[in-house]
């Protein structure tokens, strides 16, 4: 295999690995821009992966699975909202709690229903999102450089992958070009002003969390029935936190979020590829460095060495209406 082929295959797997990050980071974008910290992204992803795998297993319908995944993630989002908006509880604590509930519940229920050590049953082919060959992919394959790129990286992904990339401009449009988006960003910076304008801070934040749940549901579904064919115990494996890192790395902006997710996905893919291989001059690079790199990069960014990340000002602060 020459270097170009290797590069293409790493790029393909980078795309596949960045999709759950992209959905989750966009999910976090909506809640954090509305002033609600969401540590619970990991839990939402895990719970929706479990729900989508269960429903897809019993119905054999991938879209039903997606629906279940989305509903479950929204449900988790609403609990988060009930705790942190209605009851003005600590958002971090609520997120941590939901992560635990999701991690425990998926295994307990999975074991009780399927009895396979926390796995769900194998989802039939009809219950999965499989690869779509874009028109002309086979024809283009032999064209140098562009051909393999089109056939192996751009084509052949499942529908959720394309939806993920579609969500980026949509999120941008919603956040920056609609009234809802303007208000959402305002409520994350200065909820008092939004309240003064006669708009309900509570309802606005709940709506932001519904969007968060909706997008996180896609992420979980992707993990369970697009990337694999069953729910596997703890299958999100920290991706929710990497997505959170990507969100911060992208300074809470939709288009940079996409690039951050692609970068972190690429690091992951590169780490997989480098496992047990040697680099010229340096020798074997430990894979752990690549695994830690997204977090290290984010910390370096937070230290202010690669520009400064300003979080939404009202983030993490429950809003109390003046009495």
């Amino acid at each position, binding site marked *: 295999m020459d270097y170009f082929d290797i590069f293409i295959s790493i790029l393909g797997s980078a795309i596949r690995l960045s999709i759950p990050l992209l959905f989750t980071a966009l999910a976090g974008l909506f809640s954090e821009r509305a002033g609600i*910290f969401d*540590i619970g992204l990991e839990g939402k992803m895990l719970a929706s992966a479990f729900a989508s795998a269960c429903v897809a297993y019993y119905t054999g319908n991938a879209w039903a699975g997606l629906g279940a995944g989305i509903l479950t993630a929204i449900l988790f989002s609403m*609990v988060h909202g*009930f*705790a*942190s908006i209605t*009851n*003005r*509880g*600590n*958002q*971090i*604590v*609520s997120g*941590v*709690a*939901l*992560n*635990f*509930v*999701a*991690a*425990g*519940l998926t*295994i*307990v*229920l999975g*074991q*009780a*229903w399927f009895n396979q050590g*926390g796995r769900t049953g194998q989802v039939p082919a009809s219950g999965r999102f499989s690869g779509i060959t874009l028109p002309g992919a086979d024809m283009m394959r032999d064209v140098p450089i562009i051909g393999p790129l089109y056939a192996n990286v751009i084509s052949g992904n499942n529908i959720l992958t394309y939806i993920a990339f579609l969500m980026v401009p949509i999120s941008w449009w919603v956040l920056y070009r609609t009234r809802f988006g303007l208000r959402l960003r305002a409520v994350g910076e200065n909820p008092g002003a939004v309240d003064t304008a006669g708009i309900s801070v509570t309802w606005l934040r709940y709506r932001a969390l519904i969007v968060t749940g909706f997008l996180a549901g896609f992420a979980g579904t992707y993990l369970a029935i697009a990337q694999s064919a069953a729910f596997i115990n703890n299958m999100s494996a*920290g991706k929710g*936190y990497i997505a*959170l*890192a990507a969100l*911060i790395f992208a300074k809470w902006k939709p288009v940079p979020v996409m690039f951050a997710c692609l970068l972190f996905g690429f690091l992951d893919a590169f780490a997989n590829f480098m496992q047990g291989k040697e680099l010229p001059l340096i020798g074997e690079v*430990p894979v*752990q*460095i690549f*695994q*830690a790199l997204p*977090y*290290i990069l*984010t*910390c370096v960014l*937070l*230290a*202010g060495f690669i520009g400064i*990340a300003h*979080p939404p000002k009202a983030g*993490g602060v429950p809003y109390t209406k003046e*009495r």
Partner: protein
Amino acid sequence: MSTASVPLPAWINYGVIPLINLILAFFFSGLVVWLIGENPFEALKYLVIGALGRGEGIGFTLFYTTSFIFTGLSVAVAIHAGLFNIGSEGQAYLGGLGAALVALSLDHYVPWYVTMPFAVIGAALFGAACAAIPAWLQAYRGSHIVITTIMFNFIVSSLMNYLLVRVLIVPKAMAPESRTFLEGGQMPKLDWLISMFGGKLGAAPLNFSFLIALVMCYLVWLLIWRTKLGYEMRTLGHSPTAAGYAGMSYKKIVMITMLISGGLAGMMALNPVMGASARLQIEFVGGAGFVGIAVSLMGRNHPAGIVLSALLFGILYQGGAELSFDMPAITRDMIVVIQGMVILFAGALEYMLRPAIVRAYQQITGK
């Protein structure tokens, strides 16, 4: 009238409200048990008997309690200064490296009581080191401590993974773990403590770290409520602006608080590493750092409360393990669900019932 500003007596604030929250958490956990077709009351019975029925069970319960006291204190110290240290997990993991390095270098030459103080210092130093960068980022760069401590949990996990797989591993061994420490690098078991009450410790790993944990509880109480630094920490926690006007240095307090918090988390490693397995193992922390959050919240960030709630979680962990033997349909991960419910109800939904309780209290007292 708003109920938020009505003062409640301490016994309601620190007794009734946590108890009701706990009952709610158990109610919802019971619902899960019932949902999978088992009897929640029977499950609770197995759980309690498993945790407290025999000397060995008690030994295991107190062993888990020890770890949770350390991580609970770690979280609590930070909370008093208004900092949310969610990185106790990583700090404990790195603390394990400190303890193990001391044990590995001294165990050939000296008895355990000489190794012990060095190991305590080593564990605390490494734990504090892990908290140092997030603390610096918070104090000097203004980045959010929650985010950076989460990042450090993962960074430490990768680092330890590398060290155990490549460096500390016994040559030609399969398992990524260090060599077993000799007696000089182990914490002695506390058989005598259990036999004092007529039980037998058996295989339970309850060890000397338990006593260290209790000493730390006392020291943390001294620090928070009886020293100038503790006063400054609490001031900062209540109102950073007030602390600023009083001339307290925000940067200094944040740094010191986080170093202490990380040090306490690091000491948790003494218990599993030197007390139980006598070697450094991969992922030995096993979520105890996160349990610390629940322990601290339940215990209202007070050392006495932390001992009690650590005991509660110790019972859950040990009882949960026994429960999964008695009721195979319920896996050990049921504890994780209960833990999540406790954090949710005792932490995030802490004030959900307060208005109702205030109204009931006003009715009863006739005010």
